[in-house]
C-alpha cells in the first residue's frame, strides 16, 4: 500500500537527486521505503528518510554546505576542464552539453575549508557529472587536493562518489588511479592525515585507488562500495552472493573501512579525526 497512490494530489514526485529540493510544504517520496516525507523535514534531517534512515544522495555543493563551517569553503582549481583526448564517440558532445548547462566543475570540486574551526583541504565528488567518473580533470583535482594538504600542512578530507574511471579518456583515466595514489603516498610521507568518506556509490577505479588507501575510511550507511559491477561479480563468483554484498555494511564487516557514520554525526566525527590525527600539525605550526 503506497501512500502516494492514495493521495496523489499531495505528492510531488521530485527526483531526489536533483539539486532543487522542491518548494516548502511539498511532499517527497523516499527512494528506499517509498514512504512520504514532508520536504522541510527531509531537509532538516539532512536528506535522511525519517522512516527508514535511508541516506539519499547529496550534490557536491550541499555536501560542502553541510560539512564545513558556514561559508568557509573556497573552491580551487576552477580553471580545469575536460578535453576529449581520444576523440571518443559522443564524449566531446557530452562535455559541451554539460558546459552549456553550467556544469563546469567536472566530477570533483576541490578547495579549502574549516571544520569546527580546523583548516582542511577538501575534495568532493559529484556523482551527477558523468557518474562521478574519474578522468584527467578529476584525477588532477584529487591530486591537487592531496598536495594542498602537504602545502598547507593540514588534513585532507575527500568525499567519494563515483562509478569508477572515465572510460571515454581511455588509458589516461587509468593513469589517474596511479597519479592520485602517488599523491596519497606523498601525504603519508609528510605526515598529512587523509580521511575518505565513501558515499553512495564508491566504485571501481576510484575505490581501487586513492579511496581505499586513506588513513581513515568512513562510509555512509548502505552506500554501495565495490570493485566490479554486480553482474560481473556474480558471473565470476562460484559461491553465493551475500545479501549485503558491496554495501558499506559488507566492507565494514570485512575490515576494509573504519566506521559507518550516520549523516548527522558525520561532521563531528570528521572534526574529531582532524583534531586528533592532525594534532601534530597544529603543534608544529604553533612552534613555527
Amino acid at each position, binding site marked *: 500500500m503506497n501512500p502516494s497512490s492514495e493521495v496523489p494530489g499531495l505528492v510531488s514526485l521530485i527526483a531526489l537527486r536533483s539539486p532543487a529540493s522542491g518548494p516548502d510544504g511539498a511532499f517527497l517520496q523516499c527512494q528506499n521505503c517509498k514512504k512520504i516525507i514532508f520536504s522541510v523535514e527531509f531537509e532538516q534531517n539532512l536528506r535522511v528518510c525519517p522512516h527508514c534512515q535511508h541516506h539519499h544522495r547529496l550534490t557536491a555543493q550541499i555536501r560542502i554546505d553541510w560539512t564545513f563551517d558556514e561559508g568557509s569553503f573556497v573552491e580551487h582549481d576552477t580553471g580545469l576542464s575536460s578535453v576529449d583526448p581520444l576523440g571518443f564517440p559522443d564524449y566531446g558532445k557530452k562535455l559541451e552539453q554539460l558546459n552549456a548547462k553550467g556544469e563546469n566543475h567536472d566530477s570533483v570540486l576541490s578547495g579549502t575549508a574549516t571544520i569546527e574551526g580546523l583548516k582542511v583541504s577538501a575534495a568532493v565528488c559529484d556523482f551527477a557529472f558523468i557518474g562521478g567518473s574519474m578522468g584527467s580533470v578529476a584525477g588532477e583535482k584529487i591530486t591537487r587536493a592531496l598536495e594542498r594538504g602537504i602545502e598547507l600542512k593540514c588534513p585532507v578530507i575527500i568525499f567519494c562518489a563515483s562509478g569508477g574511471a572515465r572510460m571515454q579518456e581511455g588509458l589516461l583515466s587509468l593513469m589517474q588511479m596511479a597519479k592520485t595514489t602517488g599523491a596519497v603516498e606523498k601525504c603519508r610521507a609528510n605526515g598529512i592525515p587523509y580521511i575518505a568518506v565513501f558515499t553512495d556509490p564508491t566504485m571501481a*577505479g576510484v575505490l581501487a585507488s586513492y579511496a581505499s588507501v586513506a588513513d581513515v575510511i568512513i562510509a555512509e550507511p548502505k552506500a554501495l562500495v565495490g570493485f566490479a559491477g554486480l553482474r560481473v561479480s556474480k558471473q565470476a563468483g562460484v559461491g553465493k552472493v551475500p545479501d549485503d554484498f558491496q554495501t558499506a555494511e559488507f566492507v565494514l564487516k570485512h575490515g576494509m573501512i573504519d566506521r559507518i557514520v550516520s549523516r548527522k554525526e558525520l561532521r563531528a566525527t570528521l572534526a574529531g579525526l582532524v583534531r586528533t590525527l592532525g594534532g601534530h600539525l597544529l603543534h608544529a605550526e604553533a612552534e613555527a
Partner: protein
Amino acid sequence: MAKETAKTHKEWEKPLLELEDTIAKLREAARREADPVKQANYIEKAETYQEQCNRYVKLMYSNLGDWEKVLVARAEKRPYTLDYIQSIFNGFIELQGDRNGFNDNAIVGGPAEFNGRPVIVLGHQKGRNIQDRQMRNFGMAKPEGYRKAIRLFEMAERFRMPVISFVDTPAADPGVESESRGISEAIAAAMLKMFQLTVPTISVIIGEGGSGGAIGIAVSNRVLMLEHAVYSVIPPEGCAAILWRAPERAPEAAEALQITAKSALSFGIIDEIVSEPEGAAHRDPAGASDLIKEAVVRHLDELLLLSPAELHADRHAKFRKLGKFAETF
C-alpha cells in the same frame, strides 16, 4: 572481412595455420617419399607455400588493427611471464604467500639474477592447459596476489634489488571472494608501495594490460610495452556493453579506447615499444626474450645511475604529469 570479426587469435590465424599444416604435411610426405622426383616435387611445393606463408605472416602482423592486437595479446600460444623468467633470468626462486592467510597463483615472483645482478622479478601468470589456467585463475589476481607483490616490493627495497614486473592480465579477479578480501584496497596498496620504492623499477606489458589489475603492478620508473600487447582502462567487450549494450561490438570499442602500444607511447604513458619478432612473440619466443632483455638492460643501466631519492622522485614525477585537460586562469 572474416579477419575483422574473429573472436580469438586462433580463429584469426586460421588461414595461416592451415597453410602451415599443409607445409608440414608436404615435408612429411617428402621425407617418406622414395622416388627422388616426387620428393623434389613435394619439397618444391612446400617451399613455395613456405614463402607464401612467410609473406602472409609479414602481411598479417605488420599492420595489425586494434582488435587484432587484442587477439594477438590474448593468444593462447603467446609467451607468459614464467616463460620470460625462464629465458631471461637465472636462478629464479619463486616465493609465495601474502602472509595474511592466502596465496595466489595468478601472480608469481621472487629473487633471480638478471644480467648478472640480483633482482626481484614478478608478474601475472596465465595457464597453458585447462587445469593450469584454472589454477592461475586465467591470470586474474585476487587480493592475495597484490599483497604477495607488496611483500616482494618490500623485499626489493630492503635488499636494494631492482624490480622487474611483467604485466599480463585480462583484469583483477572480480568475484565475491575478492571483494570480501578487499581487491580494491590490495590494488591501491600495491600502487602505493611501488611509489614508495627507492630502487629502480621497470614494468613490461607483455600481453594484456587489463585495467586496475594491470596498473596494480605497473607503477614503475620505466614502463615498456611489447609491440603487440594492449593496455586498456576497460576490456573492449565491457566498454561496448556499456556504450552500446552490445559486447559483440568490442572491435569498435577497442579502436575507440586506443589500446595499442603506439597510442600509449603517444600519451606518454609508456616509455618504449619493444619490437616483436616477425609474426609476433609466439612465433619466436627466444627472439622476443632477447628483445625484451636488451630493452630492460638498457633502461636498467640508465636507472642505476640515479640515487635512491632520485628514483623515488622520478617515479612520482612520471605519473604526476599524466592526464590531458584544459586549464584557464
